[in-house]
């Protein structure tokens, strides 16, 4: 007689937002896996309708305290397309610098305090700090650097206020950015050390067949611009995103799930996808450390995303340092525009992966339509599919250990549930 088993994670820990996981087993067969996102829907797209387009960067920034820049950058690029605004190379460069700050803050935090504890069997960054105080302190310093850059350029560490459609409200003074350089020089070496450290972790032997999706730019590692490419060979303009990806509602989640159109398959976005698809665009130090580590090309082991984050952390420091050293205040700090009826879309690379925005505006500069697709929505189905494949590896353990191992896999994606609710508890049902 087959035996059913139910494993439930009531509330996922070390992720942003509220969600759970329900797994139903019949003997050794995984019958159902549901990433249950019960955080209330947030209706940001609805809030934006009727609002002046100038408010969009500040409103969308409020979707997340960890990755507000991703929302701001996606929003301003989409709106600028709708308004036919061409930004200057200087503005483009400073937007990359701002995004580097967010990557440094987010990756530094996730690597050291959220994901690393999983590799040592401890429950939190606090427990990890008892064994690795220097490493945890390093993570905290890296996070602080990211925040300081956001504060210097964005006007505020959380929910920056200096970003506007057309550029920046104010170009920072040279000395405001120059004073960050010594810390960032220390941070670059610390990021290299951190990446070498995580590369020594004991990774589960777990390989998946992924269709990995990320942006790709002819000259740069992807942040704000580029075409959308995948490991399956897709290469499209951002304008064609909705022809290739579509959101679907599932009953167990307040977050929509994105799938490829056509075969309705899941896909993977995030640091692993970006490194796999853009390794040749990494900065010199990042490329060198990537070659030193165990990160194969392409890497299809989701647990190794922590190495990819480290490599991107190095890249972000190196690029930020280049921009900081060369910085001169620029004019104009923003490009003027006139209201016109229009529609625009943009995709950028949030720390957790590709993010897509589309807006329509009217002749008075009011938003008439908004669509926001965050990375966690895009990874949700892939996480469920990964769990189906991962569960047979961990089912021999008791429910508590099985649940921990499932959470561990989920955390490798650094999901931002708050962002995706428009999204964790583990519940495994095993039939008797």
């Amino acid at each position, binding site marked *: 007689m087959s035996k059913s088993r139910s494993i439930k994670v009531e509330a996922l*820990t*070390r*992720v*942003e937002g509220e969600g759970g996981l329900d797994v139903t087993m019949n003997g050794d067969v995984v019958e159902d896996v549901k990433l249950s996102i019960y955080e*209330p829907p947030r209706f940001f797209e609805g809030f934006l309708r009727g609002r002046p387009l100038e408010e969009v960067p500040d409103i969308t920034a409020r979707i997340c*305290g*960890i990755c507000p820049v991703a929302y701001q950058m996606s929003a301003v690029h989409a709106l600028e397309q709708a308004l036919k605004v061409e930004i200057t190379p200087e503005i483009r460069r400073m937007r990359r610098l701002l995004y580097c700050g967010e990557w440094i803050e987010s990756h530094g*935090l996730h690597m050291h*305090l*959220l994901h690393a504890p999983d590799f040592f069997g401890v429950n*939190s*960054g*606090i427990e990890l*700090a*008892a064994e690795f*105080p220097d490493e*945890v*302190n390093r993570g*905290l310093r890296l*996070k*602080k650097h990211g*925040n*300081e850059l956001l*504060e210097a350029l964005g006007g*505020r*560490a*959380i*929910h920056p*206020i200096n970003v506007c459609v057309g550029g920046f409200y104010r170009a920072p003074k040279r000395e405001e950015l120059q004073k960050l350089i010594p810390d960032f020089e220390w941070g670059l070496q610390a990021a290299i050390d951190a990446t070498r450290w995580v590369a020594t972790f004991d990774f589960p032997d777990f390989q998946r067949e992924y269709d990995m999706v990320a942006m790709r730019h002819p000259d740069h590692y992807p942040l704000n611009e580029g075409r959308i490419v995948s490991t399956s060979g897709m290469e499209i303009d951002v304008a064609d995103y909705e022809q290739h990806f579509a959101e679907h509602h599932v009953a167990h989640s307040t977050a929509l799930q994105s799938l490829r159109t056509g075969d309705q398959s899941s896909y993977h976005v995030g640091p692993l996808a970006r490194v796999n698809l853009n390794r040749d665009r990494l900065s010199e130090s990042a490329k060198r450390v990537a070659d030193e580590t165990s990160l194969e090309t392409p890497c299809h082991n989701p647990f190794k995303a922590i190495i990819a984050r480290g490599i991107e952390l190095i890249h972000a420091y190196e690029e930020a340092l280049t921009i900081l050293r060369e910085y001169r205040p620029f004019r104009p700090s923003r490009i003027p525009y006139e209201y016109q009826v229009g529609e625009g879309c943009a995709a950028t690379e949030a720390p957790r992966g590709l993010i897509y925005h589309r807006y329509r505006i009217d002749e008075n500069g009011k938003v008439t339509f908004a669509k926001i697709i965050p990375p966690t929505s895009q990874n949700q189905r892939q996480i469920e599919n990964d769990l189906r494949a991962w569960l047979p590896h961990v089912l021999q353990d008791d429910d508590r250990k099985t649940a921990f191992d499932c959470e561990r896999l989920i955390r490798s994606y650094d999901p931002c549930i708050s962002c995706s609710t428009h999204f964790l508890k583990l519940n495994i049902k095993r039939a008797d």
Partner: protein
Amino acid sequence: MATTAHSLLVGVGSMLGDDQIGWMVAERIAGKLSTGPAVSGSAERGAAFLLKSPSGNISVRLATIPLDVLDWMDGVRRLHVVDACRSLHPAGKVHRLDWSILATNTANDSRDSALRIGGNTTHDFGILEVLKLAEQTGRLPDEVVIWAIDGKRFELGDRITDEVEQVVSSVVDRILAEIPVATNSNAAAAG
């Protein structure tokens, strides 16, 4: 921005009903301390920012993400944190929690209240976790006091309840009695 203040007061909060109490107390104290124009930033609640102080020996900050408090601890000797909490006590009950006692005493009433300090947190780092992390990594100031105020409504769209709002003044007075700073009147008198 490096914080070199001798004392740091942080109001932790959000816009969710009674979770605003930390911000309200911090703003009130900043207003009492400021000798210049109205305290900047009060219209931009929800973010962490530095408020003015007359003597330079105290910084007042508003935080939404408790983890950010770690970034402000360098050079700080005395830290007071104000946050909402949920315990079995009625709304408006004020708990003064001394970290040196809190960290070692797991059985008393204060500990029970403190375990539910704060509203929604980011990545599981509530203010208690942040303070534990600061302690583990050698960053914790010498003196840490948590002012936890019981609330009962923490949902989006909730207004702060009367019972909670009514204790703002008394919490402000109690904190200022513990932190030796010049207020508006005595700062002016001092020249």
